[in-house]
């Protein structure tokens, strides 16, 4: 086989895996794990993928770590050419348990039999609702700063929100993320539906709008703060600031514009090297 062709397959596959990993979020921050720098190494051998991920501290909550491990596995398995995914959490107090659980395709309760009394669906739901509120707050803030008034915002339909122009790059991303999570949570997404509702799909009244916004803001400040703190901790833990002087794009990450990959020691191993 022509080695150049092989390496080009490898580059494409790496980019595909990276794109899947970008869909995995840290539940407490609603930010992509690739953007956060949580992916430590990515290794592709033929149709098998190994992802090592790391967290800002040794003590980060094991339940959220398990969620991310599961999501990494599931997202990478969505690629048609992938046969197996080996997910490994490094430098964490629950690394051994979680890695064994992942290797055996065990559930959360099977992984922590004496410590868990249920699966993680309820906890996941709590944090997806917070993510909804945070995304909505950011979108509303952007639209308000662009001159939209409250009446117009509350009258917005999904169609009109989708059609709105001149949102700028940031605004378009905020709109996409907001509409994505509406769909994810099963809220009405048809063209004529009201676009700005509570997380339970209830309308927001004009009189109640300010206090509603304050609730959203509290949630957004919390999630953003967690992101600020955790990024900083990861950077000092792994000395990323020093490595950040590497030229961007040194590794082909294919992360679709996300800025993460440049710190990452990606191991690109051609399939026939073993």
């Amino acid at each position: 086989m022509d080695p150049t062709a092989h390496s080009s397959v490898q580059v494409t596959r790496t980019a595909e895996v990276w794109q899947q990993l970008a869909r995995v979020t840290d539940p407490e921050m609603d930010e992509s794990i690739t953007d956060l720098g949580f992916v430590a190494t990515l290794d592709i051998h033929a149709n098998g993928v190994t992802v090592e991920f790391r967290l800002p501290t040794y003590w980060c909550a094991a339940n959220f770590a398990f969620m991310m491990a599961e999501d990494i596995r599931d997202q990478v398995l969505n690629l048609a050419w992938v046969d197996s995914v080996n997910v490994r959490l490094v430098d964490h107090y629950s690394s051994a348990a979680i890695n064994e659980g992942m290797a055996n395709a065990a559930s959360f309760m099977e992984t922590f039999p004496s410590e868990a009394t249920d699966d993680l669906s309820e906890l996941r739901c709590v944090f997806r609702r917070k993510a909804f509120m945070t995304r909505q707050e950011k979108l509303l803030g952007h639209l308000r700063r662009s001159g939209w008034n409250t009446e117009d915002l509350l009258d917005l339909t999904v169609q009109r929100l989708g059609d709105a122009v001149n949102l700028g790059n940031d605004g378009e991303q905020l709109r996409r993320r907001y509409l994505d999570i509406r769909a994810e949570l099963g809220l009405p997404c048809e063209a004529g539906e009201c676009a700005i509702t509570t997380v339970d799909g209830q309308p927001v009244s004009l009189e109640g709008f300010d206090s509603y916004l304050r609730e959203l803001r509290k949630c957004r400040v919390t999630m953003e703060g967690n992101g600020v703190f955790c990024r900083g901790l990861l950077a000092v833990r792994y000395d990323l600031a020093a490595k950040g002087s590497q030229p961007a794009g040194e590794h082909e990450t294919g992360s679709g514009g996300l800025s993460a990959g440049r710190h990452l020691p990606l191991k690109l191993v051609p399939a026939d090297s073993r």
Partner: protein
Amino acid sequence: MYVTPNGEEIFAIDGHTHLWDASPANHKNRHGKEFIDCFYDYHRNLSPADYVWPKEKFERYPLETMVQDLFVDGYDDMAIFQPTYLTDFYETGFNTTEQNAVAKRAYPDRFILNGAFDPREEERGLDYLQGLVEEFKIRGVKLYTAEWRGDSKGYKLTDKWAGRYLEKCHQLGVKNIHVHKGPTILPLNKDAFDVADIDDAATSFPELKFIVEHVGLPRLDDFCWIATQEPNVYGGLAVAMPFIHSRPGYFAHIISELLFWLGADRLLFASDYAIWHPKWIIEKFMAFELPQEVQKETGVNLTLDVKRKILGENAAKLYDIDIPAQKARLKRQRIPAMESV
């Protein structure tokens, strides 16, 4: 004492300080090393570069260093010891009441010594709590609900034995309950940082004051919610305040949320020494002004009155400190190093 450019003296009570021994000789296992490594990352993450200590100094520092940093260089007039035992991680404990009591004996007017309890000690621990009150006259306790103990990964304030301890605190006049949430507690499928149990305890014990350390971070939103419901819930600002250096914009948001939801009377300054040094925190805090757009958005302001409350007056009320009398007392008993400054 911090003195404003106009000459006004601002009395500072540092609400969360430690004198720990996390030197390798005291590690019982890997967790001891990982615990102090994590603290050291907190320290490096948010401290100005010229305040970052070498690791060895951070693991164990002498009382003289602490006194110099807090009271000579750091503007603190008084400081509260918040013990964290961690006897499963450290041979002699990380930072116990008994260890901190050495400092209290040497500087009785400077330190407020808090104790600690662990409801998993059941009956035996109740006696220990009573002993702390008798021996050290403690007025507050620090609880770390995520502390590992044997197979247990933590407890909640709604546990049966926790209720017995809070009742005992009430009987003994220990009215300030500082609660620090951490990342582990069972069952593991629940959110370890959930503060709902503090809400329940605050309702059940209205005579007690519950100071939620780190203002509930990483659950600031849930903390604001319970503090809005419960007038006896306070916020300790350790971890939140150091954002003021590297992320002042974010600090503006966090402090204005807290002022909006809790008001100015229930927030306590804290450095979390030795994680952070009070000198730079107080200097930056006193110089800080909320950006106009944040003031407009939240309708709150960080005035000198508010700063004075946060830095000292609120804690003074909780610990029955008469600030003018205490100032006079401290002037009479100066620390030797202060003579040269």
